[in-house]
Each structure stands twice: as structure tokens, then as C-alpha cells.
């Protein structure tokens, strides 16, 4: 399937340029690919390997370590319900059970209409807002069963335009303007930083 599109390729080279070593751009580029296709295709991973100079096997090795990267297509909306300790104490598992009923799927499965994939996830750093969940990594705090059904309906009927499709994370990208760019510092740049040298202090 899909390698990176020409416009994503341009983004990719900008991203690679931000790091002292191309391989450091590997995970950002995998996010870019997942944003493009909703999951990681073999072609995209192979393409990224070419871009950062590692083998496809290494790309897959890194990608598969991180649970956000999906090697198979998933729903338009990834629904991640936290059941870790703080949420468990406040009904996280019951919420998950309710979600399974509402969506008619078990964690790890995708609804037949391809809209929702459900996951039973670890702590998502909203512990004081339990029970909580994320839809495509956007938070829903202190959510009740009713609240959940409402959310599902809203998503179904497209009333949640604030939540982009799966794969899209930040909708604003960092962009370093050329004239402001200080430039990557590679391990080979052994010189004392100017401001340190100027301050005449070898070791602050």
C-alpha cells in the first residue's frame, strides 16, 4: 500500500533535519505515516527505513514496541478506557464493561461499521478525573455510562468535529523558521558553546 505522499515526504525531510541523527526521526515519521493511512502499512515502514537509513526489520522492531502504532487497520475512533488503579477505584472497569455492551465488541476489537476500536488501557494521566477515557487521544473526564452513550452517539452522528480521525495527534506542527533556526548539534560538534566560551567559564 501507501508510501509517504509527496507532501508528507516534504514534511518528513523537515522533521529529519531537526535531529542530529536521521534515525532519531523514526518515531515522528511513523506517526506521520499513521496520520496518513490510519495505521502503519508495510510500504510506509519500508519507505521510512529508506529515509532514515535503517532496515525495514528495524523500523518494525521499533514501531511494534509502542502500542500506539497499529499494524492493522483500526476504527476511525480509538476509544481507550483506563482501568488502572485510580480509575479502577472509581469504576473504570464498570465503564469498560458498559462500553463493551454499548459497542458490542471486546477490547482490541473494531465495530463492524469500522467506526470504533475499543481498548482497555493503562493510566492516561487523568487520575483525578476518573473514570476517564480518550477518543483518538482526546480526553473525556469523569464520564458516566450515560455520558459514554452520548459520546458514542455524537461521534456516530458527526457531532464531534473537534475529534479528528485516528492517526492525527497534534493538529498544529512545530515549524522552525529558517532565519530563526540555530541548527542541529551533532555529536561531532565538539566546540564549546559560544555563550559558555564568552562567559569564560569552561564548566558552569
Amino acid at each position, binding site marked *: 500500500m501507501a508510501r509517504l505522499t509527496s507532501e508528507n515526504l516534504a514534511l518528513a525531510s523537515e522533521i529529519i533535519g531537526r535531529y542530529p541523527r536521521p534515525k532519531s526521526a523514526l518515531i515522528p515519521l511513523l506517526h506521520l505515516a499513521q496520520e496518513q493511512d490510519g495505521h502503519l502499512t508495510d510500504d510506509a515502514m519500508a519507505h521510512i527505513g529508506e529515509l532514515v537509513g535503517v532496515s525495514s526489520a528495524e523500523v518494525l522492531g521499533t514501531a511494534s514496541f509502542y502500542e500506539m502504532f497499529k499494524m492493522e487497520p483500526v476504527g476511525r475512533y480509538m476509544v481507550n478506557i483506563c482501568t488502572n488503579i485510580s480509575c479502577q477505584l472509581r469504576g473504570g472497569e464498570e465503564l469498560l464493561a458498559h462500553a463493551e455492551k454499548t459497542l458490542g465488541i471486546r477490547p482490541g476489537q473494531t465495530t463492524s461499521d469500522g467506526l470504533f476500536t475499543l481498548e482497555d488501557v493503562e493510566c492516561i*494521566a487523568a487520575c483525578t*478525573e476518573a473514570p476517564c477515557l*480518550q477518543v483518538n487521544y482526546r480526553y473525556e473526564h469523569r464520564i458516566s455510562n450515560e455520558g459514554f452513550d452520548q459520546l458514542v452517539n455524537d461521534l456516530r452522528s458527526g457531532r464531534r468535529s473537534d475529534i479528528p480521525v485516528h492517526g492525527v495527534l497534534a493538529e498544529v506542527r512545530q515549524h522552525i523558521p529558517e532565519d530563526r533556526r540555530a541548527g542541529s548539534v551533532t555529536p561531532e560538534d565538539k566546540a*564549546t558553546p559560544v555563550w559558555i566560551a*564568552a562567559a569564560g567559564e569552561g564548566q558552569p
Partner: protein
Amino acid sequence: MITDAPRIITSRFDNADSHTLAGYEATGGYQALRKALEMGPSAVSDEVKTATLLGRGGAGFPAGVKWGLAPENVWPRYLVVNGDESEPGTYKDRLLMERDPHQLIEGVLLASYAIGCGQAFLYVRGEMALAQERIATALNEAYAAGYVGKNILGSDFSMDVVLTWGAGAYIVGEETALIESLEGNRGMPRLKPPFFPAAKGLYMQPTIVNNVETLSNLPWIVINGGEAFAALGAETSRGTRMFAVSGHVKNPGVFEVEYGVTTFRDLIYAPQYAGGILGDRALKAYIPGGASAPWFFEEHLDLPLEKVTVDRAGSMLGSGAVVVMDETTDAVKACLRVVRFFARESCGKCAPCREGTTWLEKILQRIQDGYGRPSDLDLLLDVSDNISPGITWPPKQTTICPLGPSAVSPIASALQRFRPEFEARITQAEEARHSVPVTITKASVHG
């Protein structure tokens, strides 16, 4: 003791525009940077040393001291910001990144300026889309305004701050795993020694890894001086600190309180904080510093939130996560859930962690499902002992990093305190088995 110490890092949280450059500049933003450029690098790190700012990421190592560990005149040096916040119960770095990104960026600039870092990498947890978006926006603003990049504010201080994020792996919060991840690898920790980041970090260069909250304190310290910071708090624990109180409390929330003096009782019961146990039920146990920390109980309530005191008492303040369990809590279930977390999050590098934590989870799951055997409780302890010899505190380890041993904390705590509950679960199960014969099937053994 409840004090009226100033809010140092959450001071802007109530402002609607706290995350914008305008809102930040209007409230003293980037003044510390201007001041620092006047002071010079070493003066800045001196202030941080004076402040005795303990790391807020978990280990609680003094930032000033850590900066000094970078070998003399070895360049380049990198700064890596740990924004991977994933320790169960922990919720503070995300707030700081979403609500006051410029404060963090200014902290990054101050640290880099002081240490001589030529480039900084701001590593945000993958699942935090809003934080990533807010920081991206803030960085774009800051670059345009001349706060970041080439010749910052017209000075000879130049550096790029690169925003990057993970993709879902708790272990990547561990600093050496974070560095591996930043190098494009699987997030598997490196052995320390020899790979202490300050000496051999990113690309084997000296690298300072600091937590988001730690760095967010720097603007205030530079403006008000290390003395002022050290004047707050007690003993080794100075300044203020954010604590997330979750679980069975009336008013769960994140509170910035004076470090070292405020007590657990204050935090859990005071109306201005968590406001007491839900339905005024009795306290069963609480986790004082994130899932990795051994549990505390009633008798520890009056301990101050002070690093050394808590360490001595046999646990840690870790990442400032207080998880409260009331009398209705099922100790086996809670214990299993925390152990399952570590088993799921093991990177798989060390045999004891990879195999041991999963084994522990399977045993607990059996007990939970009613297939426990009397011998299982000692087995749990002995397997734990093989991951963390002696089951002591601070933990010893047969592993590379502390994740493996972290799975031992809840078992040690729960078994030691609530062993009868575990035994009861097992005997009930046995009796049940006599009436209805059952055999252990794959389905009954979780995973």
C-alpha cells in the same frame, strides 16, 4: 501543616489564556530568561544549586547536583525534557504542558543556558495530543518572538528546542529508555553504570534529563532567587510541589502545596485539598508516590511530604501521586491491577522482569479467579524475591532498571498487610472447587 506558600508553577492555571504567549508575557513571562542572560550561565546554576530543587520525576535527585555531573568540557551536551508522565496515579506534567507551556519552555532555555546544552529535546507522552499541540504552538510563537533559536534575544545564546513525542510505552519514562527512544530505538533501558545520561547519554554525549515539573520551577527560581525557593519547605525537600490525589476521596485533584511540611493527612482530608474519604468511610491504604511505591496506611498519615522522611518510612514520594483506597477496596484486585500494569509494561530486556512480572500476574489472576492454591502466597513472595532480592526498601534488583522490582511493591505491601484476604480468597475457592469440580483452563488463566 497547611501553609499559604505561593503557587510557584501553577500560578497561571486559573487564567484562560495561560497557554498563550500574550498571556504568559502579561504575567512576567520570559523575564527570567532576560535576567539569566545578564547573570551568565554559572550564576544561574548556582541559584538552582542554592534552591536545592529536587527532581520531580520520581528519583528526587537534586537538579543542581545532576547538572554538575556532566564531565568537564565535554561537548556537545544535550537537554532532554521528560514529559512522558505515565506512572499510574500521576497527573501533573500534563497539566503543566497544557496550561503553561511557555513556563516549561523558559525553564528549558534557562537550564540549557546554564549547562551549555546546544540543543534540547522536549519528549512528550504520545497519548497527550493537546499537550503536544499547545507546546507546538508555544514553540512556534517563541521562535517568532526571538525567545528560542538563533541569537536568543539578540544574545550569543543560540539553541533549538525540538518537540517530539513517544508512542505508548511506560518504560520510555525511564531516562535511558527515553534516550533510546529518542535515538529511534525500542525503548529498552541501558545499564547504569556505565550509561548515566549525564556522562554517556543521547548519542553517547553528556545529556541532562529533567522532568517537566522540575524545569517549570526554574523561571520562578531565577526571578526570586534560590534562597527564596529554599526558604519554603523543610529538610531536603524545598519549594512547593504538585500532588495528584486520586481514588476514594471526595475531591480528587492536583494541588500545589508546600513541600516537606504539608502532611498526607492534610492532603487527603483538608477541605481545600482532597476533602476526606468518600462517604466518610475508613481509609484502608494509600499509595504515596505512584504505582511503584510501597503502600502506606493509617499510621503514616501524619508524615510530612518530605523525601527523606518518606524514604525512611519505607516508601517514596516518587512522582507525587497519592492514590487513596477506602475500606471497601479489594486488596487482591487492586494488587493484581498494579502488577498487571508492570507486567504489561515490561520492556522485555531482563529475564526476571519479562518472565517474573507476568508470572506474578498469572498467579494473582488465578487467585482472583478462584483458582488459587495455598502455596501460591509463598510462591508470590519467592518469585518477587528473585526479581528484588530480600524484598527490601530501597529495592535491590536482579534487573537493569527498577520496573521489575516495582511490581514487587504492591505484592509486598498487600500481602504483608492483608494476607488474610488473600488466604480467604483461596480457601473459598477450594471449598467452591469441592462442590463444583473445575480444572485450570487457558480461559481462566488471564492472557
